[in-house]
């Protein structure tokens, strides 16, 4: 609590826009950086900075100089809005995922099952002959095309294709034997 802060508040309450400009000059960058740190988004940080200072102008009486300084209050307002922004973003991307593929959102049970399958498949792949294993790993675990697989292994594309085919067939048989497929 300080006299200049009380004076600034009284000027804000009276509708002195120069007081708002002064407060922005002093705290604008801090508020902006606070918002940017939480959101990681420049546009959001600008919006939040604007909201915070417009709020300050709209409701200067809500600032309590006995409980802290403008710097703290404005920082808190910025932080709160930034956290809300992040929450909204998370909710939005979750909604978008749901809209795109409602059936693939995994619950805890699906996640556990997926982990188990991964383990079974990994073991089945490990049990393949070395040539097939290398081709399968590149193609299905690392996402390469059969052309890349051929180039990576230094083998003709036709050979890569047939190793993948025979490897997948062997893998299928093993997994069937484990009761997976």
């Amino acid at each position: 609590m300080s006299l200049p802060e009380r004076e600034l508040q009284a000027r804000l309450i009276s509708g002195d826009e120069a007081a708002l400009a002064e407060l922005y000059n002093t705290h604008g960058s801090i508020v902006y950086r606070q918002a940017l740190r939480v959101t990681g988004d420049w546009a959001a940080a600008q919006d939040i900075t604007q909201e915070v200072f417009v709020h300050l102008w709209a409701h200067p009486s809500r600032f309590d100089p006995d409980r802290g300084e403008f710097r703290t209050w404005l920082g808190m307002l910025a932080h709160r809005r930034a956290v809300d922004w992040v929450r909204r973003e998370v909710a939005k991307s979750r909604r978008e995922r749901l809209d795109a593929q409602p059936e693939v959102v995994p619950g805890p049970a699906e996640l556990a099952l997926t982990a188990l399958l991964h383990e079974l498949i990994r073991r089945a792949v490990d049990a393949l002959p070395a040539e097939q294993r290398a081709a399968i790993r590149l193609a299905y675990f690392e996402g390469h095309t059969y052309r890349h697989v051929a180039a990576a292994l230094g083998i003709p594309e036709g050979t890569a294709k047939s190793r993948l085919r025979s490897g997948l067939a062997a893998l299928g048989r093993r997994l069937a034997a484990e009761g997976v497929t």
Partner: protein
Amino acid sequence: MNEAHPPRDLRSAILAAALEIRPAGYPDPEALPAQAAPYGLEVRKLDALLREVTETQWGTTVVGGMTARELIDHLTGHDAWFADALGLDVPAGAARTPERSYRAWREQAFALLRHAVFTPVIDRVDFAGLSMAIGNAYLNRAFETWIHADDIRLATGRPADPPPAPHLRALADLHIRSLPAALRMAQREHPGHAARITLTGAVSEDWIISLSRTPAEPSVTITADALEFCYLAGNRRTPDAVPLTVTGDADIAADLLAAMTFFSDE
């Protein structure tokens, strides 16, 4: 990112957005004492109205033979009695153009509101020949500001825009509380009597006002719609044009209705 600074034009964008929310010189409404809140809102509404009034409409005859511009000067003059009593600067001389009339009114009204933020409303002020609590004087200003704003609205084809219910209640309450004094000043006292005023509509409440120094049961009840009651008090309705129910002493009722406009003019 820690070195980041907001873009330069954010500052001017913020100042512009802020002044859209609350104009410069207009105090934070939340800081106004309750009795000045209705004036705060009516000033804001009249300010918005006057900003959209056209040049032709400023010259339109609005009420009592006055144009909108003359009516604003008239309002500014009445506000000036109060501003003067509070020791504030008052606009000097005639305004003569709509822009100057508007500015003179606006500056003084905003100054009155800023004053309200930092002044105890229970202090008394001598205003328009009466001594009243500052809070009541602000209610009185809210009332006249609303009534004249509606004069301009109605004369320029706009809908009336009465105060919200809590403010309407405060304005009606001021008039009802003033009735005994008005009767005394009109020398129409009724010793041993009391009256009940029942408002309906936006405000639903009963008042019992004593018409003498001794306590008494109400010998008359006047029931009226709260908004119509305020129009009556503002001299914008005649008693026979307002749907009123009177039960009990008809003479006292007639005196009360005549006293209603005692403190209003034009």
